[in-house]
């Protein structure tokens, strides 16, 4: 028994160290001066440390604009996907009509098509309708993977809400739509929250579509802006790691406060345990 306890904590310590080191390196680098980085002076803990890299981001780069663009895109595509997906999931789990099972399976299939396979076809479509280089392009593009995801996730949540509650409301004279808005949606609130957080995180982190669909300078999002800090093989690592820390902060905050819901969503919908 003592042997397994030791093995358990050894494994955990190793894994924690592996997870910790890159995050430590981000923070440490972001607090170094250009000279400390260039000459590898006090590599592990910068003495003295500096916050110049963070100041530089806001005063001399377009960092604030990238944050704004990412925030607008992530929020809008999340709301759009939640509305479309919630209506679809309700319909697919609660109402009976021909073709519903087939359609549910098709939604799952689209959920599984990877962006790495879709980006060129989707880009061609946006070129054809003449709508590229705008945040709107991304707000339309992200729901292509968010809507199937939300629909699939919420189908699991709607299934877990007892039909009797809804039927009781119908007997009391409510219409289907009223029952949906007043009974089902409030009960599905944790599911909606989890789905929304996932969508926001996925959009905030998205890189491929944002890189391809937007060529102009102004509507760049945070991940694309970050990737362009590296010019050929030369990079301003101090500023870049400061930007990396700030770019990760919102999703980490969201996650720390709400990871209970996110893990719940993870097990209830997408991956059934």
């Amino acid at each position, binding site marked *: 028994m003592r042997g397994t306890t030791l093995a358990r904590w050894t494994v955990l310590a190793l894994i924690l160290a592996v*997870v910790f080191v890159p995050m430590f390196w981000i923070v440490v680098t972001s607090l170094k001066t250009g000279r400390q980085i260039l000459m590898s002076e006090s*590599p592990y803990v910068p003495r003295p440390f500096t916050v110049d890299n963070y100041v530089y981001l806001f005063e001399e780069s377009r960092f604030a604009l990238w944050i704004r663009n990412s925030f607008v895109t992530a929020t809008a595509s999340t709301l759009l996907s939640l509305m479309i997906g919630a209506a679809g999931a309700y319909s697919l789990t609660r109402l009976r*009509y021909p073709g519903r099972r087939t359609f549910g399976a098709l939604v799952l299939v689209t959920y599984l098509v990877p962006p*790495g396979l*879709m980006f060129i076809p989707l880009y061609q479509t946006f070129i054809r309708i003449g709508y590229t280089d705008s945040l709107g392009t991304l707000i339309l593009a992200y729901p292509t993977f968010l809507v199937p995801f939300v*629909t699939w996730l919420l189908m699991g949540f709607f299934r877990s809400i007892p039909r009797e509650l809804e039927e009781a409301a119908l007997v009391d004279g409510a219409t289907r739509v009223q029952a949906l808005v007043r009974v089902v949606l409030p009960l599905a609130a944790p599911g909606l929250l989890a789905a929304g957080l996932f969508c926001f995180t996925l959009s905030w982190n998205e890189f491929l579509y944002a890189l391809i669909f937007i060529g102009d300078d102004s509507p760049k999002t945070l991940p694309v802006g970050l*990737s362009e800090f590296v010019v050929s093989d030369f990079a301003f690592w101090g500023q870049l790691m400061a930007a990396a820390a700030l770019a990760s902060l919102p999703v980490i905050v969201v*996650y720390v406060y709400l990871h209970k819901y996110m893990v719940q969503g993870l097990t209830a919908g997408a991956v059934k*345990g």
Partner: protein
Amino acid sequence: MRQERVLGYALVSPVALFLTALVAYPFLSAIYLSLTEKIVGYPAHFVGLKNYATLLESGRFRAVAWNSFVFTAASIAVKLVIGISMALALNNVVRANQFIRGILLLPWVIPTVVIALTWKWLMDLFRGLINVSLIDTGLISSGIHWLGDPTLAMASVVIANIWRGFPFFGVSFLAAMQTVPQDLYAAAEVDGAGAVEKFLHITLPSIKSVVAIVTLLSTIVTLNDFSIVFIMTRGGPGAATHVFATYSYELGIQSQRWGLAMAASLASLPLVALLIVGVVRYLHREEE
């Protein structure tokens, strides 16, 4: 009942319209475009399977297919091992379990671009933490060329990808392990089973379907991964880490050879389709 049907179609129609316009249509037109030749300034003309034949004959494409396979197989094999170890180590640890699990999941929420850039910097030849600390401890005398050597470059992108993905594996497996009834283990102990036997005969069979689903999902995504390779190596050195998605990017976005790019995008489709069928069947079985 008629009212229910009308409402049903009405509520599902936004999903249907959206996915038809921005998934099904682009996808079908991509299949058509992959059968045409289109160079900027000239109209497209139909060439049958010529683009696919060109790809199969090209040494670069064959290298890309092989690299995608290596990248995927290596990432998934290691993620399975670490994921199962992580789940076993966390299973039944009541104290600190929530907290540790929370920290371990962080790589999964951090933007992939940040992860790729950080690993590129960790592996920097002269000033990266890995080489600096290896030299400091005297394990090596001069820096290792992580991203400059073809084999090491592939290993490096795989390592970054594993770091990003193993927490999801671990937490999913842990969730599955926690549904296994404790009395099964107690009964096995009475019969004199050791830790290894309990793992092989109780734990593994109970988490089998979750392992299968997670592996299939991850294979689909990893096979078509773009960001890690694009940011860390741009497919180099040479074509040593070039994979399907970075290659379609090169053909379409950089060279504007759309027909060929479409064909390259769709090249992994037969395999992806098979994997998708696998996931759908597994999920349906789980539901019943």
